[in-house]
């Protein structure tokens, strides 16, 4: 596996062509974003209201004066965010495992169970120490 990559890396830049679809995708994305933003600004109706001016899907407003907390975001969000990342990362590793579970065999299964158990320890810690109580 590693050997193949090293051969590729050391040969000349001729196989850069395989990245061409990626470049197309990048260009397409840029064009799409540019066209929709321009078109929206040009032809869209301009009726502003309170809800429309809020940040889109970005959690609570931190400034200038949010609804609660006198300008601060409650620290409990931090724990929730950390837990979210914890499970997010767990998923990131579970997915490739699931795809090649056949090839990995029993060893892979044992490893992934160990991994889930370790994440479980952290989860048990947060749960027992009140990290999930929303007060």
């Amino acid at each position, binding site marked *: 596996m590693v050997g193949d990559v*090293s051969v590729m*890396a*050391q040969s000349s830049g001729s196989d850069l062509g395989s990245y061409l679809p990626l470049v197309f995708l990048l260009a397409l994305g840029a064009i799409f974003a540019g066209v929709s933003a321009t078109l929206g600004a040009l032809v869209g109706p301009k009726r502003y209201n309170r809800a429309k001016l809020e940040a889109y899907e970005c959690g609570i407003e931190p400034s200038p004066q949010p609804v609660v907390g006198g300008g601060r975001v409650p620290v409990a969000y931090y724990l929730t965010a950390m837990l979210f990342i914890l499970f997010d990362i767990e998923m990131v590793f579970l997915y490739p495992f699931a795809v090649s579970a*056949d090839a990995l065999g029993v060893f892979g299964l044992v490893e992934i169970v160990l991994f889930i158990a370790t994440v479980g320890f952290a989860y*048990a810690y947060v749960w027992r*120490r009140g990290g999930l109580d929303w007060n």
Partner: protein
Amino acid sequence: MLALQPPPQAPIDAPQIEYSAILPVLILLGAACIGVLVEAFVSKASRWAAQVTLSLLAILGAGLAFVLYVTDSPERGLTTLYRTIAVDRPALFLWGTLLALGLGALLLIADRTVERGGAFVAQAGIRPGTVQDRAQMASGGMQTEVFPLTLFALSGMMIFCAANDLLTMFIALEVLSLPLYLMCGLARRRRLISQESAVKYFLLGAFASAFFLYGLALLYGYAGSVKLADIANAAAGSAASDTLLFGGFGLLVVGLMFKASVGPFHAWTPDVYQGSPTPITAFMAACTKVAAFGGILRVLTVGFESTSWEWRGVLWVVAVASMVIGAVLGLTQTDIKRMLAYSSIAHAGFLLVGALALRPEGLSGTLFYLLTYGFTTLAAFGAVSLVRDSNGEATHLSQWAGLAKRSPVLAWVFAFLLLAMAGIPLTSGFIGKFVVFSAGIQDGMAPLVVIALVASAVAAFFYLRVIVLMFFSDPAPDGPTVTVPGTFTTAAITLGVLVTLVLGLVPAFALDWAGTGTFAF
């Protein structure tokens, strides 16, 4: 539908794992996980006792597994887990050093006789100076999470010294760093400077990790592999441009030098050493230095030896900068913990002289120097934690005046440790400097060694100044008192002083052990 089925993959071979070789690390990691569960499920009242017992048993168990393995380990060492971990003689020497130093540091961390309730605060998140903060300073509780965190950090350090590829090394770097960032912020007294040190260490440490990772990426681009041996092969046999190789090497070295607090990447060291709880400072100063230089030795020797004539000049400059910064700025310090921090920067420069020698004498000399420096600095910070007044530790140098009249024992012990750091004969520091500098001379680095000798002479001045202050000055009327430590701290300081003395008188056995083998890859 059938076309969407992925083609069946060929089975991936499970790695060959030499469990007996990596058992010490596994024991520490396992115990750290159990420690997290103890935090979750054991009642608050019995947590401290449970954690101390668990951690001590873990380190002793890991030490036992280590001794059992060392007695019949293969001479040439072995690699395991897809060649990502190399358990060879240098790694085993560093593991033994780390386990012994970790035991000493753990004893300092566990001590609750010097400060009521221990050196750690119960809730580190409370804002300093508030009513809640004063209330918790008076209470006897402490954050018992420090014990699993210490075990995690220690296991990370052990993996760091044995990591045979850069990715494993990066993971180990994070495993050792993240607990340390947290523990820096837990001092019971002087909360504000403790929190400041934690934030500084975290931000700068994250920055240095990014350098390391960027270097890793460039080296992978060059060699097509993260394994040190493959990078060495690629560097020896490739006609590709060297830009990626040396760009990657430079960035990688910045990350490594940061952890080892080598100047000019030292800026965090004085602040963090000063602000952290002193047991944690002892742990960092002793164990992180050992682990970081273990990693530096392996990277330089295994990965980049064949290109050494290209980069060695740069690291000469780094070594000189480190020695000069440590020795000169150490002179101006008025805080004992900051002074020891600058001393550690100077020592990092001396260690780099040995690491740059890139020959068996340099390897064994650097390993031996790490052993001696670790124990000396552990005991020195242990002693610093005992000199106290009503505000906690009295770290200002003026408060140390005339300490010999109040507590002759502590003054003599500390004077001995300072002499060892200065490199006076009959202490381990002298032998350490001697072997490292002679390896440097054998490798034709005489100018560097001359600079190192001058730097150690300058540094000796500020060590001697403290000794003069302790023995020949009049004590201040409201000066600090010396706390009589309990079993744990006494044991840790005694361990450090004894090793410093024994290695100064009969260094041969440790020197022999340090020189028994080279890196496996």
